């Protein structure tokens, strides 16, 4: 992954959080951001927008994060998209658990909108250097 992080997709059922994340990533980070507030629209639209990374809410009412991740991984068109979980779980499992699921990292909610772009970039870059 030699190129820079440019395009970030977010999937969260909370429209407000989605908007904050979008604002932070766009205005502070200067990234291109695509947002999805339901799983189906994400699965339909992700292939078209081809993001560099997907921020995925861990807990959603219709389909939870790990299930969505599985769906993405099993879809040949989407399998290449790296996923970062975002979780507000009061008792989150270890980071190793998320990595085991196939995510490249995890960001705890509530996140600081001012540092969110940097954090996403750091995880993505780390993953990139790990992947070689």
């Amino acid at each position, binding site marked *: 992954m030699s190129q820079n992080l440019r395009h970030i997709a977010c999937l969260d059922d*909370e429209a*407000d*959080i989605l*908007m*904050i*994340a979008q*604002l*932070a990533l766009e*205005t*502070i980070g200067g990234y291109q951001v695509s947002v999805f507030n339901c799983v189906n629209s994400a699965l339909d639209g992700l292939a078209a927008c081809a993001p560099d990374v997907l921020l995925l809410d861990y*807990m959603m009412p219709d389909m939870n994060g790990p299930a969505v991740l599985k769906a993405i991984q099993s879809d040949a068109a989407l399998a290449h998209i790296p996923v970062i979980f975002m979780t*507000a*779980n*009061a*008792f989150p499992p*270890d980071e190793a658990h998320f990595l085991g699921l196939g995510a490249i990292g995890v960001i705890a*909610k*509530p*996140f*600081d*909108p*001012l540092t969110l772009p940097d954090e996403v970039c750091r995880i993505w870059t780390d993953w990139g250097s790990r992947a070689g």
Partner: protein
Amino acid sequence: MQMFKWPEPAADTRPITERGGFTAGFLVTLAGCFLATLALPLFVVHGEQVPQFLPAGGFALGAVVSFGRRVWPAIWIGVTLGYCAMSGADLIGNIGTGRLVVGLLLGGAFTLQSVLAHPVLRNFLHGRKMLLPLVSIGLGLALTGLLTASIVPMVWMTLVAMSSGTGFLVLGFLNTWIGACLAGPVFAPLTVLAFVGTGLIVPQEQRRGTFVKLAIISVVTACIVIAITVMEGSISDNCSTNSSDRSVPCKGLYRGLSREVIWYFFLVIREAGLVIGVSMVALVLRVASMETALRQEIEQGFSNIAQMANFYASIFDDAVDGIYLVDYTRRRILAANKSAERMFGYEPGKMEGLDSRRVVDRDWIDMLHADNKSFRDFVKEKSGAPFDWVGLHKDGKRIFLEASSSCHIQNEREIWSVVFRDVSQRRREEELKRQFISMVTHELRTPLTSINGALGLLLSGKVVTIPVGAEKLLKIANDNSRRLLVIVNDILDIEKIAAGHMKVEMRLLDVARVLDQACAAIGGYAAQFSVSVKLDTPESIPQVALDPTRLMQVMDNLLSNAIKFSPRDGEVTVRAFVFGNFMRISVHNDGAGIPPEYQASIFEKFSQVPNTSPRQVKGTGLGLAMAKAMVNAMGGRISFESLPDQGATFFVDLSLGVS
């Protein structure tokens, strides 16, 4: 439920064998009687009458020896008085009548003695010591009178009538025979036999043996005395009947002996026989009454033991907590109470003999085994201290139990008692509470994420330009929303700690570096309060095992507290130095100090010291509780020192791992 009664103390708790001076008195009396009878030849003034006072003296001596020992002296006094009286009567009356009465009296007195040994009378007389002599003498005399009035005249009159035609010799023989033979060794046992028959002295089951013994004694003694008396009668045939004429030598069998010598010889034998006979009767009765008393005491003892056993069994059985006794060597449950059977779902008595592993959850046991421990090791290790374990219901359900155990050695076997209560309900409630808090905080954190994010973005000025005058209000909203978030996070952290979910990842690190980061991180906060943070660490410092994330949290708590409670332009000093086996980190401020009334509870949840500074910064009251939990989780300890107006110093000691 029947109320348990503690056993009443017995009137006299000593065993009966230790109670009276009977044996000593008896032996002395016996010795006295023998000495007296052996001394008979020395007293020849009035034939055989005077020496009868000597056995009386012996009895008196027995009374003295046994005096002060409750029942027995009174009897001996009674016997002595009676014997004296009868001996006196003997002096003036017919020798045979006197002897008869003496025998009856002795028999009666010994009977009385046995009667007095009977618990009914003994308990009545217990505490009425003044009555003892009166009762025994009265009873003795009444008995003697009764017997004398009924038996003696009848027998005597019959004999007189029978002997009217046979002459004085026959009468004399019978007279002596009745006196020596019947009165002493025969009548006394017969009198006693009457009492034995009533069951008053000797219990039913001992009656036969006592009868036999008494009968044998009577027959043997009677035979001896009859033989002696027959031989005595022959003296009359072979020696001069005139007792004053001592010069006339005897004939036949007694040839060459003086009449006195022969007479006294038989006299000695006869008296001795009488005393022995009576004494033997007394002895037999004494043993019988002792047996009775012992039997009663044993029965009473067994009854007390049974009562106590029932009492303890009812404590065991009716306890609300489950209790079972287990022999871990044989892995068998020895006994279980009702609560235990109910908790584990077994029918009454069905837990006895059960394999002790059947009541312990397999997964839980496997967890112990993973630590190379058996349940037995676990219980032994916890001996005395309460512990939690997971039990297994008969139908396979897991039961959460809170228990304690103790070891009892019985017959060189280790028996463990385990006392436990079902805390499944409490566990469920705690789990529900945890889930509830988790849910609530999650629900709070989601909107807080939006609010904080929105306010943060607004205040960053990168999204929109903030209108003049709005910035102050936005800042207030932002600060309070962040504070709310801190509270929610603190509550979550505390819950994590309470649920044992907090994990620490220990690494060997340079404390100075972590402290440097912590001080840097708090810099902005300190600036708000115009407080400076000074870090003072030595040049070289040993590495310590710690969890940097947790230590940062701890330092954040301690530093923010120290800053909050510092005076304006004050200084907070952070030091790190080796302190014994610990690396000590100290955080000192120059505030007002912690008021003494708050010192004891400073590390408890929701404990807050009121901030007297005008800045009025409030916390959640959870910071120090969390700091303590985290330091403890790292195997360290936290403490503080504070004097009024001299500030406060908090210490975090992390083990250097050197012992």
